[in-house]
């Protein structure tokens, strides 16, 4: 094809229309990929909502689980999940941020540090059931915490720590070096620099990472089953050493029961779980937008 412009003398073969067509082709393929994902997801959610919405009545939140579907609720599971999230966050956040600060700001760049860094990254990929086994040995039996919500939360804290440390480091690394230098050049100590500049600017990123890590903890079942969280609890959770259950375990329990109504209860439980998850994600986005500093 000859170009519109006079200096085309045949030394180039632009094949413009072919190149443009290829571009459009890949644009369409990408669109198809997105659409497929969205369709599968909406079908799933739609199915669950249709199954479970009529069970989302006040008693569902205030009743303990029961042999009778109409008297069943997820009061204890919701309590367990909320306790667990709070305890996990309380334990994992300071340790995770502290470790991230140490690794980014203080640790010397030597073999040991790199070894630790690689292992933390690897830990983030370890199957969660391994953490369950660790929690069972270390907290339930070793520290004799029993099958308590505290032991569960500690296990969960271990599980999310690597994720938290990795995301915390990313956030701290994203703070421009120039800000650190500006502070140090004014005669600030390293801690003053971290406290006044690095942490405030890394905080949105750290919080986002934390919430995403916590969201993962809410959905986890395997480690809790391993340490022996109960499935059938008909009393309020009063302290960290009490026995507990959580939403995913309750849902799993309902799914395994033969009655059709329990399947629908499970669907309703999933709606609640998704609701909690989405709220946490929304919170992460809001926090990020609110605290974000534009450089």
């Amino acid at each position, binding site marked *: 094809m000859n170009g519109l412009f006079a200096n085309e003398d045949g030394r180039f073969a632009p094949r413009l229309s072919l190149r443009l067509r290829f571009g459009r082709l890949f644009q369409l393929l990408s669109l198809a990929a997105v659409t497929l994902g969205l369709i599968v997801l909406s079908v799933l959610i739609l199915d669950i909502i249709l199954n479970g919405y009529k069970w989302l009545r006040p008693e569902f939140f205030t009743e303990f689980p029961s042999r009778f579907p109409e008297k069943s609720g997820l009061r204890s599971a919701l309590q367990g999940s909320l306790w667990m999230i709070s305890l996990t966050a309380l334990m994992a956040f300071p340790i995770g941020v502290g470790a991230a600060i140490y690794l980014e700001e203080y640790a010397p760049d030597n073999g040991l540090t790199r070894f630790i860094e690689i292992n933390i990254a690897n830990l983030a990929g370890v199957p969660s059931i391994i953490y369950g086994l660790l929690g069972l040995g270390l907290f339930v039996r070793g520290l004799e915490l029993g099958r308590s919500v505290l032991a569960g939360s500690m296990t969960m804290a271990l599980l999310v720590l690597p994720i938290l440390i990795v995301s915390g480091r990313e956030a701290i690394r994203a703070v421009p070096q120039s800000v650190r*230098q*500006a502070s140090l*050049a*004014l005669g600030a100590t390293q801690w003053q620099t971290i406290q006044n500049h690095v942490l405030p600017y890394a905080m949105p990123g750290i919080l986002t990472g934390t919430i995403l890590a916590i969201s993962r903890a809410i959905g986890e079942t395997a480690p809790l089953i391993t340490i022996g969280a109960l499935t059938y609890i008909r009393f309020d959770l009063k302290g960290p050493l009490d026995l507990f259950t959580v939403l995913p375990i309750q849902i799993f329990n309902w799914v395994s029961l033969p009655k059709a109504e329990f399947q629908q209860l499970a669907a309703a439980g999933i709606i609640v779980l998704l609701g909690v998850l989405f709220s946490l994600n929304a919170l992460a986005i809001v926090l990020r937008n609110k605290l974000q500093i*534009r450089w």
Partner: protein
Amino acid sequence: MFDKHEIALSVKNLNVDYGDFRALENISLEIPARQITAIIGPSGCGKSTFLRCFNRMNDLVPTARVTGEVLFYGQNIYDSKVNPVEVRRHIGMVFQKPNPFPKSIYENVAYGARINGYKGNMDELVERSLRAAALWDEVKDDLKKSALALSGGQQQRLCIARAIAVEPQVILMDEPASALDPIATLKIEELMQELKKDYTIVIVTHNMQQAARVSDYTAMMMLSKEGSRAGTVIEFGPTPQIFTSPRDRRTEDYITGRFG
């Protein structure tokens, strides 16, 4: 060389190594007080590294090792009993890219004073520093505004105000105008002439005309020998002499644009 001037900084046999790599080699020179000293030279000859020796910013590079002495009014700042944090309050620094904190204009200026335990009136200090940096009239009604909303030239003058708020004796400037347009550059250069009444200024610049315009003394840096990567000062003298009759052939070649 400086009969009229007191010596603010005196460098003696300074070497800087990064691990096995020697970055600066055997530099000795004296920086006169309340004068502007420019450091010029081709890229990669260690100008910024040299500048960072004066406020121990090289300490932040884990592998860096500084040997030799830098005497600040007689006190070796590399002495084991001197903490770099203390040095940096007395020898301030302005960086190449304006880097105000993402806080208000007021907070930017007050920060250094606050962390160093300033006991006087903070509002007065902020105003005085902003006036000294020729920025007060432009920002006096917007002190609560984010520093990031200022123009590049204003941001750089804010960084200067921030540096002088901790009342240093020396201000180091690492290519302070290289990210600015010509007018903002001239404003900074004018400001430097005002500042030199009270402060000793050491400026690294790529721009030879700038060095010629603003400085009283010029240090010419270059790799110490063919094939080496270690920079050193090959000629140091009054700026008019360096730019009209340099003694070293390499200085001549560099400033007349025949280097390389």
